[in-house]
Each structure stands twice: as structure tokens, then as C-alpha cells.
């Protein structure tokens, strides 16, 4: 899986390079719009992560030129501008998804994953982590064969964690995907924390190993160990 990252900010570029490489992606870095454009022409990529504010040729331009050649490569835009208008400009120019800085890296990974498996459906109804089993169609959860009594929200939360099994999920991702909350200023962090605490009580209190882990400052992960 070859990913082209076009980002001028050195630290961010290096972090993206490191993080994506650790996830098994083959990353190529471009520091300017021109360089990115040149690289796109010279080698095949499966995905582009594009910063909108670039020196020289700006991201929207790169994207528009790319799209005018009708290249079907999925593009994830990353930018510090987050007004609705900016979003619309980006998506109009042909971006497939949009991520606002500062973003949680877990979120970037999730988006990259979603874009790279686009078209392929990957939603098995029965999921399993250790001895925790989630039946999405029957909305039933068992741990070690014992049925857990979850509220609707707790179930959705658990299902989301289990679907992202082994990967850290940030609070923003939960707010957006589980609570369907788009406003960034909505104070949901406490709500999420309380739900996680309750879910953890039901899932982990009377069983070993503990499955729900908090990664401090990042989010939550489900699995037999935190990393």
C-alpha cells in the first residue's frame, strides 16, 4: 500500500511518515505541491494525504490538476482551516475526506484505512476479542459465555471499539461516529469517559484479562493488552 504524503511542515511530515510506516504503509514524502505533483506522475500511489496550505502550488490546485487528469486515487485532505466553506472547497476540488488539524493520529489512521478499503465491505456481524463476543445483528454481547446487559449507547460504543480492535480510538472519533456529534465545541469528553467507565465495569469487572484500556492523552483501545 503506497501512500504519498504532501506536507510542508517538517515535524508533521516526519510524524506521518513514522506513524503510517509503523502501520505497514509504504510512505513517500513530498514537501511542496510541485514535488508532490511530480511524484504522482512518476510512480503509482494508492492514497494521497494532502496538506491544503503548501508553499508554491497550494493543495487545492494540486488536487484540481490531479482530478482534471481523472486519477481515481483517494485523497485525504489535512488542513488547519476548518470553516464550512473551506471544507466545501476541498471536497469540491475532488477530495475524498477532510481532516482538521490538530487531529488525533488514531483518527488519521482510521480515515486512511477507510479510504483504502473503499468499495470493499468489511462488516462481519459477529466479532470476537479474546472471550468477548459481539453479535452486531442480534445486538447481543457475551463475555466468557455470560450475556452482558448493555444500554443501546454502550452497545454501539463497544461495537465501535471491537471493530477497531487493537487500534486506539480517540474521543473525537467516538463523538463523531458513535454519538454522531459534529460540533467540535460540544463538551462530550466527560460523557464519553463516563460511558467508557460504565462499559468497563460491565465488561471487565468480573473477568480477566482486562480488555478495555485507556491510552492516556490519546483515547481507548480494546484488546488483551494496551499496545
Amino acid at each position: 500500500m503506497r501512500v504519498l504524503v504532501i506536507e510542508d511542515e517538517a515535524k508533521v511530515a516526519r510524524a506521518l511518515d513514522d506513524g503510517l510506516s509503523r502501520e505497514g504503509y509504504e510512505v513517500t514524502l513530498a514537501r511542496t505541491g510541485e514535488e508532490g505533483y511530480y511524484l504522482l506522475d512518476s510512480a503509482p500511489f494508492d492514497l494521497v494525504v494532502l496538506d491544503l496550505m503548501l508553499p508554491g502550488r497550494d493543495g487545492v490546485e494540486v488536487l484540481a490538476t490531479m482530478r482534471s487528469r481523472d486519477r481515481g486515487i483517494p485523497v485525504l485532505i489535512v488542513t488547519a482551516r476548518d470553516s464550512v466553506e473551506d471544507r466545501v472547497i476541498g471536497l469540491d476540488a475532488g477530495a475524498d475526506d477532510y481532516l482538521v488539524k490538530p487531529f488525533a493520529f488514531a483518527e488519521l489512521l482510521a480515515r486512511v484505512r477507510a479510504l483504502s478499503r473503499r468499495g470493499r465491505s468489511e462488516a462481519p456481524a459477529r466479532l470476537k476479542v479474546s472471550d468477548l463476543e459481539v453479535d452486531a445483528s442480534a445486538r447481543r454481547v457475551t463475555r466468557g459465555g455470560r450475556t452482558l446487559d448493555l444500554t443501546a449507547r454502550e452497545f454501539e460504543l463497544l461495537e465501535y471499539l471491537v471493530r477497531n480492535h487493537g487500534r486506539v480510538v480517540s474521543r473525537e472519533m467516538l463523538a463523531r461516529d458513535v454519538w454522531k456529534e459534529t460540533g467540535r465545541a460540544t463538551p462530550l469528553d466527560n460523557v464519553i469517559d463516563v460511558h467508557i467507565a460504565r462499559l468497563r465495569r460491565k465488561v471487565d469487572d468480573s473477568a480477566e484479562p482486562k480488555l478495555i484500556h485507556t491510552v492516556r492523552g490519546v483515547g481507548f483501545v480494546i484488546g488483551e493488552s494496551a499496545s
Partner: protein
Amino acid sequence: MRLRPRHVRTRLTLWYVAVLSAVLAVYIASTLLFMRVSLHRQLDEGLRGEFGHLADRLTSGRDGTVSVAGQAENGDPGSLAEVWSPGGELVYRSPRLGSQVLGRPASMTPASGSINNLTLGNGTPLRVLTQPHVIGGRDVVIRVGVSEEYLHHQWRELLTGIAFGLPAAILIAGFAGDWLARRALRPLERMASHAEKLTADNLGERLPVENPDDELGHLARAYNLSLARIEASFAQLRRFTADASHELRTPLTAIRAVGEVALQDRRDADHYRDAIGSMLEEVDRLSHLVGSLLVLSRADTGVALRRQGTGLLDLTRESAALLEILADEKGQRIEVRGDPSVRADVDRLILRQALINLIDNAIKYSPRGGSIGIDVRRDPDGRSVIEVSDEGPGIPETHRSQVFERFYRVDKARSRDEGGAGLGLSIALWAVKAHGGEIEVSSEEGNGSTFRVVLAAETPPDSEARGARETGEAGLERGRTVGKIR
């Protein structure tokens, strides 16, 4: 290209002079006309007198000649007169005429008292009266003339006087007008030069108001008032900037301290992990803060509302349900009651944000085991009201108007974890004002507070036709006029 003087003063003066000249011209012209008519009338009356005087003294000799009785004796210079017989013969010519001739009358039977102009051979202009008369039983026609020279002389003097006097008068009036205009405009110039020198540092200065009741006084007062408003917003902005940098600095300090301390000694991976996690928590706080500030700054420049008819009780229940778990954790009860028929045209997402912030606030400040009441109803004026009451410590009178200010916290000692950044209520107020509504606070110290969101009655149908979109700026403007806060 039109020629247009640059200064108001010059324009005023020019207008003044032009109007004055026009008025004077009309006045002088009508006066001259009147004088001319009246002078001629006087002359003609004199002429008739002369005729009577002469006719009385004319005598007819036996030989048909006519003479003037007593002319030689009293040194009378005599008239300019001729007497003609009906046959067209000259029977008398006064000596004063000398060699000049009045001439035979055009008709021997002239209408009585006809007067016409005539110029003598030597160029003297005359008014001449021609009238039939009877002397000693004989019909004659008498012609008597008076010179117009004196009248013409007077006329010329008058015109000369006007020709010199009028421009002088207009010139003087022009200078006086210019002086007056300058005097009247001086306060304006003072205002302008004051405004030119205006910077953030001398916003406190005010213009002197000489007479508060005249137009310039009014202008000066208006100017001073707007200065006061600008000064107040500046002060608010300064406070906001100071508070914002404080709020931003606090997590930055924490990040720096945690990072530096972690690097002091060689530690194990878990220790570093913990330090990085702690730093990321602060980063999260920073991101939230910046996010909220962005919401507010965008609110200041105006946001497009996507209004749609919304049941307010449903929206309130939805917002309360989202936060219910927080209340539950504190053993609190949230009770939402009200009239399900209360509807309003609102941007669901934005109004919901306001409600969430208000409810979050109520949960935060109510004690464990307390209850939070939310009431949705329509007030007697047809406005929609959503009332959020908590059982918190209440807001002291002195703080009540300030709780909506950005970063304002009633209890300064309250930690950020408990109290948040102090932007929630600002955002709530903005969201409600964007809808043309207001938030009222009533509170009793020690006995809870009530935040009352009041929205205008459902928009009448005609405004719906304008489209559902409306800029937040317009909304804010309206909010300001009805808002009771600030």
C-alpha cells in the same frame, strides 16, 4: 468635468453670494422699474401743470396772433410751447424755443392730453403734450414740452451708484459669509482633527460639547458616545486577549514542565509513556480551547443559520439525554417538562449547542443528588421560552451580567477541570443571539440559578419566503437590540 470647490466653507460662501446676488438683482430691478414709472408720471403731471399755466395766460390778438400775457414782466423763462391753428399754421412759438421747433401736430384734432416723446433739433429729449384749446373764441392746438434731461441725469446717477455699490456690497457679504461659515464649521474641524489623531491609546479623550442642544452639540455627543462604545469594546478585547493568552499559556506551561522533567533523568518506558500521555492531555485541552475560540470568532463575523421549524421540547429532551449520564453520575435528576407544541424556526445544531452548554453548566454547579428542571413553554407574548434551573450556589448580583463574558468565572478558584475554560456560556449566548433571542438570568444566592432562553415568536410566513438562510450577523444585530444582557 464639473468644477466643484473642495471645501464646504467655500461652497457655502459661493451659494450664499449667488443667492444674495440674485435676490439683490430682482430687488433692484423692480425698484428701478417702479422709480422710472413714477418719475415719468411726475414729469407728465408737471407738464399738465405747465399747460394749464400757459393756457390761462394766452391771449389772442385781433390779427389772429397769440401772445402770453405778462411774460416779459416777471422774467419767466417761459415754456417750450407752440400754438397751432386748426388750419395747420403756427400762430405762436415761445421765445424759449428759440430756433428749435416742436413741429406741427400729427393731427389737428388730437385726443385731449396726448403726450409723446420728441427730440429737438439740438438733441434735447422732450415730453410733449398736445391738446386742443380755445383762445378768445378761436380753436387752436397747443403743444407744450418739458425737457427730460434732468430725469435722464438722475437716472444715470442712480445706475452709476448701483453699478459701484452692488459689487461692493456683494463682496462684503461674501467675506462676511465666509467668516460665518468658517466659524460655524470650526467645531467640525476640531472633531475631524481629533478623529485623525485617534489611536488605541487616547480613546479616553472626549470632545468638549459647547451647546448640547444645537446640531453640532448633537454631533459631538453622538461622536463621544461612539467613542465610549469603541473604548468599551477595546477594553473587552484587551481583557479577552489577556484571558485567552492566560488560558493558552497554562496548558503550554504544563506540557513544557512535564516534558522537561521527564527528560531530566533516564527513566523506563512506562514513565515516558505516562509523561507523553500527560502532555497529550494538555494538547487536547489546548485543541478544545482553540476550537471554542474559533467558534466564537466565527460567531463574531457572522455564521449562516440553517433554520427549520423545530419542536423545542424534542430538541431540549435530545440535548438533556446526551448529558443525562453526567447527571446520573452525580445522582442528579434532570426533569424536562413542557408544551410539545412549542415550535420555532431555528438552526437545530446551533441552538442545541446553547442548550447543551446550559445543561452542562447546570449539572456542573448543582450538588450531588440535586435536580435540574427544564421547562419549555410559550410566554404570553407568543415567544418560546426554555428555562434551565439548577440547584447550584447561585450567582451573586455583581457577577450576573458578566457570566456570559468570555473566560469569566464566578469562582476564580474553581479549577479548570471543574469549571472548564469559561467559554460555554459565551457560546450559548452567541447561539441564542444568532437566533434573535436573548438569555435572561435570575438567581438567588445559595438557592440556584435559572437561565431563560427566550426566542422570538415563530417567524411569520412572509419571512419564510425569504429563504431559510439568514446570516448570523443580522441575527446578532437583532439580538443586540432586544438583548437584555450587556
